[in-house]
């Protein structure tokens, strides 16, 4: 099994505080990796560095052998890495369908010159995208909401929608920041089954989660972080019983 993501000694400082402290980790292709740890451990910071929203102060990270450190977020997305946000980001003023359409890559209609010079092509591509988008929405049960404003959806549905936006570009690596936090059990099941499905299709997922039941249930491996460092790594059982982890929680 190849490593799809190879992180080596990543450092990140914030005003003198070390958010990431020589953090290293390897993620195997096709696995579901759980990223856990107390608040402020640096999990979201790690995601932000990996997806180009934050500059790191040292270290490297390779996705499919290519460097991602220092690249812009949109380029990293283009390389095949998608993410969701802890603070649930969506365009609430646009419809559900528009949000999904936004997520498609390589749209000719997004190039100004093509809008005017190749309007036929743009139109037809947008039509194709619309069909695909609606198909996705149907799959996850949001079809009826397609024309509604994203902001009118329930919290759980919004989380589902943001996951759909993630998946639409068919990424090889998914970085999900608390994908099921704060939602009801049935929606949680739905989202988790989508995630597991992705893994079955060979996609890799790294998941930040606080819910240990969820983590034990679907994560094959787990990395425990605290104070910017990797404290422990292994199966959920191993990590749970690791004395270092217990110590970190007791602090």
């Amino acid at each position, binding site marked *: 099994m190849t490593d799809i993501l190879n992180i080596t000694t990543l450092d990140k400082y914030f005003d003198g505080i070390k958010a990431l402290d020589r953090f290293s980790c390897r993620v195997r292709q096709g696995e579901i990796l759980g990223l856990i740890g107390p608040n402020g451990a640096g999990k*979201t910071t790690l995601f*932000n560095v990996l997806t180009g*929203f*934050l500059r790191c102060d040292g270290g490297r990270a390779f996705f499919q052998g290519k460097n991602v450190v220092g690249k812009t977020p949109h380029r990293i997305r283009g390389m095949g890495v998608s993410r969701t*946000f802890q603070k649930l980001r969506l365009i609430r003023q646009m419809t559900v369908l528009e949000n999904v359409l936004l997520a498609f890559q390589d749209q000719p209609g997004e190039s100004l010159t093509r809008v005017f010079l190749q309007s036929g092509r743009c139109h037809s591509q947008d039509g194709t995208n619309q069909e695909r988008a609606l198909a996705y929405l149907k799959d996850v049960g949001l079809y009826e909401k397609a024309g509604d404003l994203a902001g009118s959806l329930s919290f759980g549905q919004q989380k589902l929608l943001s996951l759909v936006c993630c998946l639409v570009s068919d990424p090889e690596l998914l970085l999900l920041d608390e994908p099921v936090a704060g939602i009801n059990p049935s929606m949680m099941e739905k989202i988790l089954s989508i995630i597991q499905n992705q893994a079955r299709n060979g996609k890799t997922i790294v998941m930040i989660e606080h819910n240990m039941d969820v983590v034990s249930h679907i994560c094959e491996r787990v990395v425990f972080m605290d104070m910017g460092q990797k404290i422990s790594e292994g199966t959920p059982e191993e990590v749970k019983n690791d004395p270092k982890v217990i110590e970190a929680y007791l602090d």
Partner: protein
Amino acid sequence: MIGLFFGVIYKTTRFFHFAHAVVFTSGAYFTYLFHKLFGFPIFIAIPIAVALAALLGCGMEAGVYRPLRRREASPMVLLLASLGMYIVLQNTISMVFGDDTKSIRSGVVREGLPIFGARITPIQIVIICTSIVLVVLVALWLKKSRMGKAMRAVANDAELAQISGIDSDRVILWTFGVGSALAGVAGILVALDVDMTPTMGMNALMMGVVAVIIGGVGSIPGVAMGALLLGLAQHLGVWKISSQWQDAIAFIILFVFLLFRPQGFLGRKVKKVEV
């Protein structure tokens, strides 16, 4: 040198209070009103005018800004509202007093004493001294007094301050009051030096903003330094290039600073959107 005291005008109110420009102007015009038109002696007209300027500022805060803040309006909305207020009030002044230059200067315009190769009139000396005194007083007040500390707390983190029991509305009101009073004083001083027109406020404000951004938002010594540097740069510029380019120089400096160092020399870091 005048640049030094533009810094006096600017208070940390968390957004760009364009209408401040009009408070400045109004300070001068209120004085005019009372002195020339109503015949009050100048020493009485000035304090009244300053008080009225303060009231005007508070009025703007209470009438417009506070309701907007209640609705969690973004800073841009506030900025636009203050622009609107500026336009309304400036034109009111134009209408009432006319667009021509008015004067409250009394006495003969004297040559001025040569100092360091420049000529400084007595009035300008008064201005410089007054500004230095005021700046120092304000700085001390912010550091030592309770209200001053409250102001700094609110400027730092409004929510936290609220939770700690500081009534941020009152604090902001005070900020406006003091800031506006200072602006009024500034307006009067400038008028004493170079007369007044209805649009004098905007120019002054922009210089003030440039000084603040160069020197650093939220730091009084920074602002003073910024104002000083600005004044120097402009006057140096006048030597080499014709005086009409003064404005452009100021704004080019501003542009460059905004681009490369938005926190100025001594200010706090400007936060970008959090992910």
